């Protein structure tokens, strides 16, 4: 592959509420055993991008723990590999990353000393599977300065959470609005960009000179009429975890067969850190319908239309409906949970009742746990 990869995983999102209190958005658990960054990393490795940098800042510990070994994504290479950039104090700089462009500027030497002609920039909180080779081909064919991967959204999407683009018939981007309240376009940027490495270095250095720090507003939006920026339409699944509702809906999407098969069964699949867990154990008294059960879990109750993440225990006579139970949760007997996300490592006492009437509640309970 003639490109290096950069994954922007530094941001925080207040709209995800409690779930990002102790973890980065890119480290949010997804569908049992995965973390959201696995999708960006797996797309990179499946497209044979060999040299990948991850920029992280907010709650970076959760992410660096997950990335402690690069071998799970096949990045344990002599050529290239996986590098994690957190803000560091240097002779020239003692600031945090002030924005995405600033993060790249503070690590400009990584860009400068690479020799691949192109750079793929991706966000760490998108759920997608993409062949970057095809995007690069498209980029070269269009003779684009910058190519932005875009996705057409359904009517009524929340435009204020996305970068919205307008394209002409040739897919050249003629307008780019960042998080507009109202927009006439239903095409959004997926936060995935390809451009020439030297070009990126120029743009970033110019930004820094002008004391600008954000890649989207200070480069894409600002240069939209000057540069040839093209949109590459992604026609497969894409979801961005920008809010608690997004997080819930994205996880629940995996109960649909086409989504599940697209990510989990159709080659190439998504990789993650391997946890060496025993098989899921489903005991007498269980009744599971339309649900996913991750390994290491022990189920004794009813689970409907829900996701049960790894190493979770669900006691007898429990009723779990439309809920996401994160990893290492213990739910004692006779509990009822409906429309909830149960935070990882929670311990829920017996006879607990929680039904969220509107939307989704995050349940965090730190009861005493008695180990058998």
């Amino acid at each position: 592959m003639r490109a290096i990869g950069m994954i922007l995983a530094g941001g925080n999102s207040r709209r995800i509420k409690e779930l990002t209190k102790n973890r980065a958005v890119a480290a949010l658990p997804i569908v049992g055993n995965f973390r959201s960054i696995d999708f960006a990393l797996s797309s990179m490795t499946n497209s044979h991008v060999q040299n990948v940098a991850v920029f992280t800042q907010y709650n970076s510990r959760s992410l660096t723990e997950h990335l402690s070994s690069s071998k799970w994504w096949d990045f344990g290479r002599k050529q290239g590999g996986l590098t994690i950039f957190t803000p560091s104090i240097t002779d020239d700089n003692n600031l945090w990353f002030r924005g995405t462009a600033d993060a790249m500027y503070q690590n400009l030497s990584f860009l400068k000393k690479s020799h691949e002609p192109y750079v793929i920039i991706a966000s760490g909180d998108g759920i997608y599977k993409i062949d970057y080779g095809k995007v690069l081909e498209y980029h070269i064919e269009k003779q684009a300065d910058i190519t932005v991967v875009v996705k057409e959204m359904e009517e009524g999407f929340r435009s204020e959470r996305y970068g919205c683009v307008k394209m002409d018939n040739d897919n050249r981007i003629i307008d780019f609005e960042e998080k507009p309240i109202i927009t006439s376009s239903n095409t959004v940027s997926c936060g995935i960009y390809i451009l020439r490495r030297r070009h990126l270095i120029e743009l970033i250095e110019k930004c820094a000179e002008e004391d600008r720090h954000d890649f989207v507003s200070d480069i894409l939006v600002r240069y939209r009429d000057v540069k040839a920026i093209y949109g590459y339409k992604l026609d497969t699944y894409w979801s961005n975890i920008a809010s608690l509702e997004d997080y819930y809906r994205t996880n629940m999407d995996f109960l649909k067969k086409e989504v599940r098969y697209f990510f989990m069964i159709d080659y190439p699949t998504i990789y993650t850190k391997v946890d060496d867990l025993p098989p899921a154990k489903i005991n007498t008294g269980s009744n599971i319908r339309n649900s996913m059960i991750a390994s290491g879990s022990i189920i004794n109750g009813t689970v409907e239309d829900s996701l049960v993440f790894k190493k979770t225990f669900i006691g007898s006579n429990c009723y779990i409906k439309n809920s996401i139970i994160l990893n290492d949760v213990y739910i004692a007997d006779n509990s009822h949970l409906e429309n909830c996300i149960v935070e990882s490592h929670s311990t829920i006492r017996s006879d607990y009742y929680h039904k969220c009437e509107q939307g989704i509640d995050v349940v965090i309970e730190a009861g005493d746990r008695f180990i058998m």
Partner: protein
Amino acid sequence: MVKKEMIAMLLAGGQGSRLGVLTTRMAKPAVPFGGRYRIIDFPLSNCINSGIDTVGVLTQYQPLRLNTHIGIGIPWDLDRNVGGVTVLPPFERNINTDWYTGTANAIYQNIEYMESFNPDYVLILSGDHIYKMDYEVMLDFHKKKGAAVTLAVMPVPMEEASRFGIVVTNGSRLITEFQEKPENPSSNLASMGIYIFSWKILKEALMANADQPNLDFGKHVIPYCHEKNEKIYAYEFNSYWKDVGTLHSYWEANMELIDIIPEFNLYEEYWKIYTKSQAVPPTYVGNDAYVERTIVGERTGIYGRVYASVMGGDVLVGEGSEIRDSIIMNGAHIGRGCYIEKAIIAEDAVIGDNVRLGTGDEVDNDTRPDIYNHGLVTIGERSVIPDGVSIGKNSVVSGEFTASDFEGGALPPGSTLIRGGERR
């Protein structure tokens, strides 16, 4: 100079012919177990959990699966700069080129490998057993007793003792007598095939017996050491240990894992069993499905009803199918509307729609009643079973078949239908 206090030699070359078609294309240690493991995962995980980071795996019979499974040892953290796991097949030499002709002969042929680590002790293991054991505790025992050889032994019911190699010990656990499958056993301590040798003793014994045909630990090396009055001690092990040598014991050991609190607990944090796995998506249970008393590997899709079974990963159970008391290994696909009872379905087998397995009465198998018994139906790896057929109890089917292979759409109990044998 490289120095490892104790290295392990894992004998993984045997066929395990009593597992029937399960070992047609793989050695017994590579046979899947407990949903997502292979038998060899247990001794390998025991090694790394016991602090042994140098393991030689001796392969001979159908080694491909073992080789790809072990690789460079990443799943067990046995990818090391010095030591780690090494697969040791028989090899050609200037004189005396030979296959591994016996357990001790295989070790003898790899003296050079062992010597390169300059060990004080060598642990001999076999790749056929399901257990968790801290070999370091056994080594401490060996050192404390000042033993030349230590055998791991476990108490078995007295009435079954005549099926085992039995040791008789004195009060301090020094072995005074060996009895191989004795008619009238004078002890119930059975040897588990796990030995710690002080390296000098092992090397001397192997060299001295080099010309013995089919050189075997139980038959030759241990008796040789005993005759020389070396101190041989018995280390008693009292936890779960299962020999999965026959199809029925293999089926039973799998079924024990689905008990509410299984005797062999895979869910403990501190003694993990490692295995090779790449993708780890959760298992999906469909809307009209029902699952109980079952353990399930990863990325399986269950759309039918499953009771009291052990399922691997990447399995598919179609709508309206019912599975009871069965072992379904990785990658097997079961069609719709099937009824499957007490079956062992090996990896990547494809069962058509409306197939019935385990019908009729228990009739002795027509070719190998000693292997295919207890009412089990065994379906070999990558077999294809056409739609609508029924297969009786104590039958074995292996190979790709079409409806025309089944007269009247049924295979009577106790039948053998094996095609192809080894793949070309």
